[in-house]
């Protein structure tokens, strides 16, 4: 097989792992790809590099390609999500001052119950709660809105959501510019390490099946050479399968710790990969199964219903027509291409391309090509379900 060089961009975060592993463990090479990776200084910069063709593919916040399809922010370009790169993996954290107040109220930092955590947080804050998120179009922002909205806060009006680049999140807490944050690892753990805050919840406690990052590429690049796009999807899928084996996680941590990837100590990175988080500055530990998922339960499958949920949220907040937004978003998540790419692998893919988001309360066997697929829990903490049939 001749080798094709392909350039992909990423943001230094633990969940860039599928791209890093595809390159470092040789899955890209097995697919005939010479995968070159470069870090980007910001999400907007990564998005623009992709839109302008300076790179071929990117590790991207799942809502960004949807926002672009809706004409929100950035250069006009059709960007597709070829696969889900990771499910969950964010943390909600609070400042030391709030953590101390919560401690005096005997809040147990269970790192599990979003209702108790949200009520405790709302009870301790005076005025508008200031929450830092990495980007306006992000699952982080959606989780915060959904969580506090479901607990009775009027969102977005009663909330002050601010954009803070992830590496600056700990400092923004320390400076008192924000009260809380929702951010991807390792940046939440870094805030804890620095003694600037405590972790309240994993993102998975708000929504157990949040499509966090996608593998993104320009639609014209995909259509120009579908075989190449499929090779990339397979390389990432193989990397995700490798990442699902616990015995590989310490190697993965060492690779990601390198300065050309995340540049943070391997032991902090390993917390997110294993779901063993240190949640307070005094060292309380919590284990979260499914904290960050790459593979099990067809995690990589880009469900059109995920795209529709994101579009519905964005349209609702920005005053766009919901049914038009749904039509634009539907095309973005390429379940068709994903199926074609994995056709001759051992992957067992779901029979349907849409599901009712939030309806899976326990691991559930579903109709699939090989009849062996069990989908993981994808429930919202408040029992919300989103039926894509009724979104248009």
């Amino acid at each position, binding site marked *: 097989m001749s080798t094709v060089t392909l350039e992909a961009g990423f943001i230094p975060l633990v969940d860039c792992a599928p791209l890093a592993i595809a390159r470092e463990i040789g899955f890209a090479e097995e697919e005939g790809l010479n995968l070159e990776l470069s870090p980007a*200084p*910001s*999400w*907007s*910069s990564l998005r*623009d590099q992709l839109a*302008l063709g300076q790179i071929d593919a990117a590790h991207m916040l799942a809502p960004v390609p949807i926002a672009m399809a809706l004409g*929100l*922010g*950035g*250069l*006009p370009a059709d960007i597709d999500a070829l696969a889900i790169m990771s499910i969950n993996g964010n943390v909600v954290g609070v400042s030391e001052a709030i953590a101390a107040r919560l401690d005096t109220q005997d809040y147990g930092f269970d790192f599990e119950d979003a209702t108790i955590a949200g009520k405790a947080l709302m009870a301790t804050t005076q005025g508008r709660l200031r929450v830092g998120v*990495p*980007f*306006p*179009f992000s699952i982080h922002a959606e989780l915060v809105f959904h969580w506090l909205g479901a607990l009775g806060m009027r969102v*977005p009006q009663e909330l002050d959501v*601010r*954009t*803070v*680049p992830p*590496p*600056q999140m700990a*400092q*923004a807490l320390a*400076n008192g*510019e924000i009260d809380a944050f929702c951010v991807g690892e390792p940046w939440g753990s870094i805030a804890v390490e620095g003694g600037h805050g405590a972790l309240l919840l994993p993102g998975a406690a708000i929504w157990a099946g949040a499509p966090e990052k996608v593998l993104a590429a320009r639609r014209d690049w995909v259509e120009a050479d579908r075989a190449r796009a499929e090779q990339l999807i397979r390389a990432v899928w193989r990397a995700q399968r490798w990442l699902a084996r616990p015995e590989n996680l310490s190697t993965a941590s060492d690779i990601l710790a390198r300065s050309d990837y995340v540049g943070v100590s391997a032991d902090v990175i390993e917390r997110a990969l294993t779901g063993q988080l240190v949640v307070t500055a005094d060292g309380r530990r919590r284990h979260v199964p499914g904290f960050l998922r790459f593979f099990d339960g067809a995690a990589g499958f880009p469900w059109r219903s995920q795209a529709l949920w994101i579009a519905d949220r964005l349209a609702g907040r*920005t005053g766009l027509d919901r049914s038009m937004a749904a039509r634009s978003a539907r095309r973005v998540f390429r379940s068709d291409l994903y199926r074609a790419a994995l056709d001759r692998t051992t992957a067992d893919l779901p029979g349907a391309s849409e599901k009712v988001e939030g309806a899976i309360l326990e691991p559930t066997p579903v109709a699939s090509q090989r009849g062996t697929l069990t989908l993981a829990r994808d429930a919202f903490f408040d029992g919300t379900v989103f039926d894509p049939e009724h979104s248009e």
Partner: protein
Amino acid sequence: MTNALSIVVVEPDADRARLIAEALESAGENSVHLIGSESSLSRAIATHDPDIVLIDIAHPSRDVLEELTLVSSPLERPVAMFVDRSDDALTRAAIEAGVSAYVVDGMRPDRIRPIIDAAITRFQMFQQMRTELEATKRALEERKIIDRAKGLIMKARGVEEEEAYAPLRRTAMDQGKRVAEVAAALVSTAGLLS
């Protein structure tokens, strides 16, 4: 007088900021406000109510400006990243020079153009300076590594400096590599033998 455009430049380096401001002021009747690296960037910008915001495309806080593209009250003016659909080359030139411009909705392209042009020229100059600085730094680094490699060879073979360079150059030619690469490989693995 409402003809003057209000421009905010986000640039932490004071010297660079001054040079950009000069260029923009000479490009027309503009009022230029400089903002360093502040964590509450979008608020600092909002107080100036600018028509255009210019920021280095690689600025790590650029994502904060994306907030401006979401209008949250009817009094706010929607902002979009500058894209001139009639002049794709200009957009591309700006991005290649490392400028990103956020422009208030409804601005006439002919009013923006001279500002973007002036910014491009300045940023290209910075980029050239940066490239030259990096090249100089790299050359120095390489010089150091080659010297260390020569030192290792002199010690191992008991030869003089002149003779120590020859095997490095020969290996580089044979392997189709640069002398500095061969030297780096030698230096990085020499520890294994001692």
